Structures are given as structure tokens and as C-alpha cells.
């Protein structure tokens, strides 16, 4: 049964090689660039305002002064010399670090509990992502109402546990505490989901070996689970820290930066300067410094993550 001998040459054989269309080496090398052109243009469209914004920090641009003059580093020196700025830095760091730590610890805990695969756990896993899918601004508003002494359920609960002077977010300390709690309410599931995926992908044999050796839960957790889970957890931590450093919605919706300046983070400060008071250059200087902070921290963390992941991959 010959396969090709019978086939009529006019149909079964393609055009001879001499007629084949040719594509030069240079055009082939160009291919990935052509595919990336739209994305590069989009980047340019985003980076242009960014660099424009950076250039504004050297002007005294505001709604009241639409024909700005170059002021050099005045905006920076004013800002770095002002108490308001350093308060903002402190508030930003306190909020971002406490929220990230709380979310990581809670998220890891929830993941460990869900990984035990109990019936309740299976049920809860389905609703785990609910807070994460609520728009942060709406979550903040929901909590704002929940915390309002005259409307929300928190006052009666507080009263039940014997707290008589409950006053919602009226005190500076409690405003920060609740802001962190609300942030954790939204984003703990984020950490939990990633940690859970990590836990479920861990190899079983080391744990069985540890179990056979009679290692305690704590020892297994500290020496085995945590190191193996760390590459996963670190991804979550980086995302959360970066997000929390620039968190706007939660704080704006819950406290708008108050009372006083107790929850005025850098983003809130920049918002107040640039949008509320229309002092664009001042606002942008805040933002540029925050951006620099986020950028430096993210660079360090991503480098660290890469190293950890390479080690986990056995490179």
C-alpha cells in the first residue's frame, strides 16, 4: 500500500522550495518587538504623566498659580522640614507594617486551619474570598456604619463584653486600630488563599517522615512547614506591604485621615494637598517621595523573593 506514489502530484505536493516566500533574518528578529509595540505605547502613555508629575515637583504649581515658576528643590526641603510630613511617614509605616503583619499571621492561621480539611473548613473555604471581592472603599463604608455607635452592631457587642465607653473611630489610637482591622478584614483572605495553595502543593513525604519520628506540631511547623511555605508567603507579603504602603480607599472611606492627623498617610496627605487644596506641586512631592519609598522597598523584596524562589527550585 504505497502512501505517496499514487497521490496525484498536483494536489498532494506543495509548491517547490524555490517559490517559497522568504522572510529575512532581520524581520524575524523584529517579530517580538512588533508584538510589544502596543504595550510599549501604553507604557509611554502612562509614563508621560508620571514624568510630567515628577517635573511638577520642581515647580510651584497650584490652581491658584497656573503659570508656575521653577523653585528647584524648595518643595522637597519644605516637606522634609515639616512635622506634618514626618507624621505622615510615621502613620504610613505604622499602618502598613501592622496591617501586613496582622494579615500575614491571620492569613497563615486561616490557611493552616482550612488545610485540616474539616467539614466546616470546606464550607468556609467557599465564602473565604467574599471580603476580597468587596470594593475596598465599600468595605470601608460598611465598616464605618458598623462601627458607628448609633447604627452599627459593634457597640452592642462591645457593651456585651463590658466595654462601656465605646466610641467607634473617635480616638486617634482606635482610628488607627480600626483602619488596620478593616484592611485585615479585606485582605486576610488574600494571604490565606495563597498560603493555602502553597500548603496544598507541599510534598507529603517530609511530613510523614516527621510524623513517624514523632516530631511535635510546633517543631514540624517551624522546621518544615514554614521554610517550605516561605516562597509562597513572601509573594503574599510583598503584595500586601506594597499595597498597604499606598492604601487610600480603606483609610479615606473609614476616617478620611482623622481624627486630626492620626490616620493621615502619605497618600491621604497628597490627596488633601493636591485635590482638596489644589496645591499640585506640594501633593506630587508627597507622592514622589512615597513612590520612591515603595520602589526601593519593592526592589529589595523582589530581589529577595527571586533568590528564595531560585533556592526553592533547586537552582
Amino acid at each position, binding site marked *: 500500500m504505497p502512501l505517496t506514489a499514487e*497521490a496525484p502530484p498536483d494536489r498532494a505536493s*506543495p509548491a517547490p522550495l524555490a517559490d517559497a516566500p522568504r522572510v529575512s533574518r532581520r524581520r524575524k528578529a523584529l517579530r517580538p518587538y512588533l508584538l510589544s509595540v502596543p504595550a510599549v505605547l501604553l507604557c509611554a502613555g502612562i509614563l508621560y504623566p508620571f514624568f510630567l508629575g515628577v517635573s511638577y515637583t520642581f515647580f510651584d504649581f497650584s490652581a491658584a498659580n497656573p503659570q508656575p515658576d521653577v523653585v528647584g528643590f524648595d518643595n522637597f526641603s519644605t516637606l522634609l522640614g515639616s512635622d506634618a510630613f514626618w507624621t505622615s511617614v510615621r502613620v504610613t509605616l505604622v499602618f502598613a507594617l501592622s496591617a501586613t503583619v496582622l494579615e500575614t499571621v491571620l492569613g497563615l492561621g486561616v490557611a493552616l486551619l482550612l488545610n485540616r480539611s474539616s467539614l466546616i473548613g470546606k464550607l468556609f473555604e467557599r465564602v473565604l474570598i467574599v471580603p476580597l471581592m468587596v470594593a475596598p472603599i465599600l468595605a470601608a463604608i460598611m465598616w464605618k456604619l458598623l462601627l458607628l455607635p448609633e447604627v452599627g452592631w459593634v457597640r452592642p457587642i462591645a457593651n456585651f463584653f463590658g466595654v462601656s465607653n465605646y466610641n467607634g473611630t473617635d480616638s486617634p489610637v482606635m482610628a488607627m486600630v480600626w483602619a488596620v482591622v478593616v484592611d485585615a478584614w479585606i485582605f486576610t483572605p488574600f494571604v490565606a488563599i495563597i498560603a493555602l495553595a502553597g500548603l496544598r502543593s507541599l510534598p507529603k513525604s517530609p511530613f510523614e517522615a516527621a510524623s513517624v519520628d514523632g516530631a511535635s506540631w510546633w517543631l514540624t511547623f517551624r522546621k518544615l512547614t514554614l521554610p517550605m511555605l516561605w516562597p509562597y508567603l513572601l509573594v503574599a507579603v510583598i503584595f500586601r506591604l506594597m499595597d498597604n504602603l499606598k492604601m487610600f480607599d480603606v483609610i479615606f472611606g473609614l476616617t478620611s485621615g482623622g481624627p486630626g492627623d492620626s490616620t493621615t498617610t502619605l497618600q491621604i496627605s497628597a490627596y488633601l494637598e493636591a485635590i482638596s487644596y489644589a496645591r499640585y506641586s506640594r501633593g506630587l512631592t508627597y507622592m514622589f517621595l512615597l513612590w520612591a519609598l515603595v520602589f526601593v522597598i519593592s526592589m529589595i523584596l523582589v530581589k529577595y523573593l527571586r533568590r528564595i524562589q531560585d533556592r526553592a527550585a533547586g537552582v
Partner: protein
Amino acid sequence: MATIDVRSVRKTFGKLVALDDVSFSVNDGEFFCLLGPSGAGKTTTLKSIAGLVQPDSGEVWLGGQDAGDIEPNHRNLAMCFESYALYPQHNVFDNMASPLRSPVLRLPDAEVRERVGRTAEMLGVGHLLDRGVDQLSNGQRQRVALGRVLVRPANAYLLDEPLAHLDAKLRTSMRAELKRIAHGELNTTTVYVTHDYVEALSLADRIGVIKDGRILQVGTPQQVWDTPETAFVAQAFGKPRISFVSGGLVSDNGTIRFISSDGAITIPVPGLDTGAAAGESVRIGIRPRDLVLHTGAGDQPASHERLDGVVYVLEHLGRQTEVTVRIGESLVSVVAPRGDVGGLAVDDKVSLLLDPATVHVFGDSDDGRRLTR
């Protein structure tokens, strides 16, 4: 159908040199085997021919045309991938019909059905045409992948380990089938990549031995077996493997003899080429089947040298036995009929008979070049 010329192709991936000055040509209708260990650059060579890998330098010519600027889809080559590369969303029929329906061929439906059916029957997957790819065993997948190649006419077939994942029995019968198709019916130029020397010897018109991205030797099965260019090529063919003994050449009354490093083996080496001289350190290769286990009785042919040693290891392989004999510091393998080794035990004294004309002499390294004519 077409000739294939690979000319000084070099390809690097980062720091790794995958192909280093690879050159060979395949004649029209020839079945060419590329034999080498894993990581030797076999697949990269194949993909360079297909146009899937862009060489850093060097050229690939197809049918007398420089194919550098011709896209893979216009080269009219059919390739069977080692990973099968079957389309997971299609069933077996659609996978095999894919090249026939492509813009290059665009055969009418009836002919597509007829060709796919015929090829599938031939490969023993005719009953699987409606199956999804994920419902096949590895052996079945491999045959479908091969079917996707054989179903179509092509300038050349590029086959990357097409029998590697079949079980031993099926592999043997498929090898015979492939030989029949390739040499008899299709007569299509074929480049066949394998790490299995038996496949290469039985299928190929010519074999190219490749290692570390370099072609070591190209020749007919007879040539690579009889006159391996390097120690590595000699070692690539035959099981048990060729035995190597290191030593040096000395001049003895005008003839040159080989003496092993420990002096335990000394034999004349006729047929040395002009490049070899006394005093040179070399290694000799002795194929196990060129040795005869001398069981004491009987006479020794005049042309043969006698080597005395003790049994080191005995391995029974069915009707034959592989005996490893220690001669001084050297280990030499010999294959003997089961009956001849009946009373033999480890540490027994034995003699081996060797025709010096069958000894291969190489320079003393893994890349050592052949010094015998």
C-alpha cells in the same frame, strides 16, 4: 523530496554551546540517522533543519536552496517531536489530519479521510481515531505523532526518537515497519534521531555520530562499525561495549607493538597509519566479539595472539555469557557461548585469543582519534 545540507551550523543557548560547527549532508531519499547520547545536540540539529531554531552561524540548504530565509511552514518538512506535541484539544483523527488540511496542502476531505485512515491502520491506531489525545497511552501517542508525519508527502521527514517510548516488542516491530516504509514505499529523505545504536545500525543508510554538539563521524553502518574515527564512536556501538586498554607504542625490530601501561598486554598492531609513531601513548579498543575464549584444549591459530588473565565477572545473557577478564590492571570483555563457560568461576585462569588485525588503536583520550587504517 530533497537533499539536506547542514553547513557549519553553530548554535548557543546562553553560555551553552548546543551545536559547534555541525556539517553533514543527506542525499535525496536517504535514511540518515543521527546517533548520540542525550544532550548531544540531536534535537537542536533537527530543529535547525526545520527552521524552528535559528543558527547563530552556518547554513541549512534544502534541495539545493539556502533555506535560511524560508519559514518552517514553507519548508515542507514533516517532524515527529520527541514530546509528541499532539494538539490536546483535538482527537487522534484531527491531529493526523492537521498537515493535510493546512494551507500548504489543503487536500479535499475525502482524501484526508482516506490518507489518515490508511496511515492509522498501518501504525495500529486505526481504532483510536475518535479518541482524545489525553485518553492515549504514551506508546499510542507516539504512533499518532509518527502518523502525523507519515500521513503527508514532504521534502523530508525529521524524526526525533520516534520509537523511544514504545515497549520493547512494539519497538522491534515498528522498527521493521519503519524500515519497510522508509526504504520501500515512501523513499522520502529522512533524518532520524536516536540514542539507540541498534536502531541506527538497522535503519540507516548512513549514520552521523554526534556528541557535545560536534559531529564525530559520518558513514555507513559498516563504516562506523569497522573503522570508528574516535574512541567515543567505537564505544557508541555494540553491547557489551568495546574494551579499552591504555598503553604505549614501542618499536620492536621494525614492527610496532602495543604494550599496556602495566606491561601485562603486549600485541603487535599492524595497519597503523602514518600518523602513529613509537613512543606515543595510545589506547586500544577490542570488541568483545573479536575475542575468543580459549578453553585450554584445541590449537591456537597462528595469526592470533594469546592473552592470559583471570575471570573478573561472569554475566549470563541467555545463550551467551559475557565474561570480563582481568589482564594485569586492565579489564577486557568477551562474549562466549554458554556451553564454553560451563565450569568457569570468578578468579579462574583463562586465555583469550585475539586477531591483532581487529584491534582498533586510538589516541589516548575520550576524543582520541583513530590511528589504524
